[in-house]
């Protein structure tokens, strides 16, 4: 039974020696593993340290996914060494172990988690009740509030999420998924007395999230920090009015808030306000414009009665192709509009055909091109032959024709 998952695996481990410095490199080991499904990556590390290389440094404590010390990058993904089995690493791949991103490397797989906990603390990670409670608060597990906070309180501060989030690299001041997740669990708690300063701090970095979901993908506790951040963004929008007050509250309560960061917050606030004004302005302009144009255009869309317009004297029409301007007035909405449009007249002996000059594709002006003996639309290159049939390009149908008549030596076309 055990033999089915027994194997020899290549292991690549990142090595960095603080006394030598440099970029670090990978060392290669091979290890016989009797049962991949019951051997964790932490077991692998312990065995290599014991059997092959006592200088190997890594961190662990609980061995049962509770302390969060053994977070590292295992084959291109942040995981806990004690929670990952060798069988989770595809057979074809080496086992590749490397320290977490975004933290200074102390030695081999051990990183300095100070920046992580500093951000955690800056998010005001502790709970402070609004009022003194004589009795323990009773929290109904099925209440909406408790369900919303959910299992996001289960964070073990392993740093996997921060390592996986590429935005932590590009935004110095970004609190990162773990700290914002912590802030969320308290912001969503109605007993919490530090709502305002906490929100002000969380708001300063909640927009650095680009919704990549890397943190959610890697969290060994299956927490979604993304959900937490979305909640904070939502609070930022719904508490827009309180924001001046919020900033003031932080200013007086928290001496840590530097003038520079306050200036930053003011900028953000002004910016948000401008965005709101902008959106409202554009919105109402669109609404007004919509109403006005419906009022103006609506009547014009109603069928106007058809009528005849004289466009030329027969005697003036050359045989072959001619372009004639047609002028007439039409009642459009509340005013009379004069229309002036070219008509393409083709005369062959006694037969006269009048084409509309607007292209059946998108309505650009069609002209007769004597050189190539065809009608041509300049916009998208549609061409038509002498009879209006499409020769090339996007037009979906031949040139439209007017209904015509000849009366007392005048050529009329029907419009309407």
């Amino acid at each position, binding site marked *: 039974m055990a033999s089915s998952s027994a194997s020899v695996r290549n292991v*690549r481990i*990142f090595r*960095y020696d*603080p*006394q030598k*410095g*440099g*970029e*670090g490199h*990978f060392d290669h080991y091979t290890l016989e593993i009797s049962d991949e499904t019951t051997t964790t990556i932490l077991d692998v590390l312990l065995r290599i340290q014991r059997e092959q290389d006592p200088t190997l440094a890594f961190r662990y404590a609980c061995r049962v996914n509770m302390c969060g010390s053994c977070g590292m*990058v295992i*084959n*291109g*993904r942040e995981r806990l060494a004690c929670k990952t089995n060798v069988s989770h690493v595809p057979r074809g*791949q*080496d086992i*590749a172990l*490397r*320290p*977490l*991103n*975004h*933290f*200074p*490397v*102390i030695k081999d797989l051990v*990183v*300095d988690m100070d920046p992580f906990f500093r951000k955690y603390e800056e998010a005001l990670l502790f709970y402070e009740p609004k009022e003194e409670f004589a009795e323990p608060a009773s929290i109904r597990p099925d209440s909406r509030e408790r369900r919303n906070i959910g299992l996001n309180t289960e964070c073990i501060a392993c740093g996997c999420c921060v*390592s*996986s989030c*590429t935005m932590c*690299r590009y935004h110095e001041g970004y609190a990162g998924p773990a700290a914002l997740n912590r802030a969320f669990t308290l912001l969503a708690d109605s007993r919490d007395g530090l709502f305002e300063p906490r929100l002000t701090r969380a708001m300063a970095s909640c927009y650095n999230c*680009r*919704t*990549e*979901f*890397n943190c*959610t*993908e890697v969290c060994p506790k299956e927490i*979604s920090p*993304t*959900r937490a951040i*979305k*909640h904070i*963004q*939502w609070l930022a929008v719904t508490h827009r009015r309180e924001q001046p007050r919020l900033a003031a509250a932080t200013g007086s309560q928290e001496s840590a808030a530097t003038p520079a960061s306050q200036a930053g917050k003011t900028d953000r606030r002004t910016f948000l306000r401008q965005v709101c004004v902008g959106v409202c302005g554009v919105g109402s302009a669109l609404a007004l414009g919509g109403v006005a144009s419906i009022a103006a255009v609506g009547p014009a869309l109603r069928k106007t009665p058809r009528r005849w317009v004289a466009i030329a004297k027969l005697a003036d029409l050359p045989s072959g192709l001619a372009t004639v301007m047609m002028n007439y007035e039409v009642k459009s909405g509340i005013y009379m509009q004069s229309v002036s449009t070219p008509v393409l007249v083709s005369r062959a002996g006694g037969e006269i055909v009048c084409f509309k000059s607007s292209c059946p594709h998108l309505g650009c002006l069609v002209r007769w091109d004597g050189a190539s003996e065809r009608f041509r639309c300049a*916009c*998208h*290159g549609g061409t038509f032959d002498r009879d209006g049939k499409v020769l090339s*390009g*996007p037009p979906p149908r031949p040139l439209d024709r007017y209904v015509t008549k000849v009366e007392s030596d005048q050529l009329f076309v029907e419009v309407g």
Partner: protein
Amino acid sequence: MSTEYRKPLQWGEQDPYRRENTAIGMWAWLAQRVSALAIVVLLALHVVLTYKPFLQFLLLLMVTFHAALGLRVILLDFNWVGVKYQRALIWGLVGLGLIVMAATWLSIY
């Protein structure tokens, strides 16, 4: 004897198998940024070189991607769709976008 910390490693730096393990949400993010740049370039080309079906097709395709992925983020931002559906949203919205795009394309040509 000096002891120095190594400067922090970055995503993808000395990072074996990272590419295969990149989560779909990250690709969605990247695809949206790339399509945004593509739209800027293709739009300029579209204005300069009118009526080039190939160009129009590419432009429409990029707009489809950009819009679908943007809608996904909006839906997630306002919690109109729960974060647990983030992957389904990618396929769903991009698929829907492509259908709409195909319909648009066929109705024009």
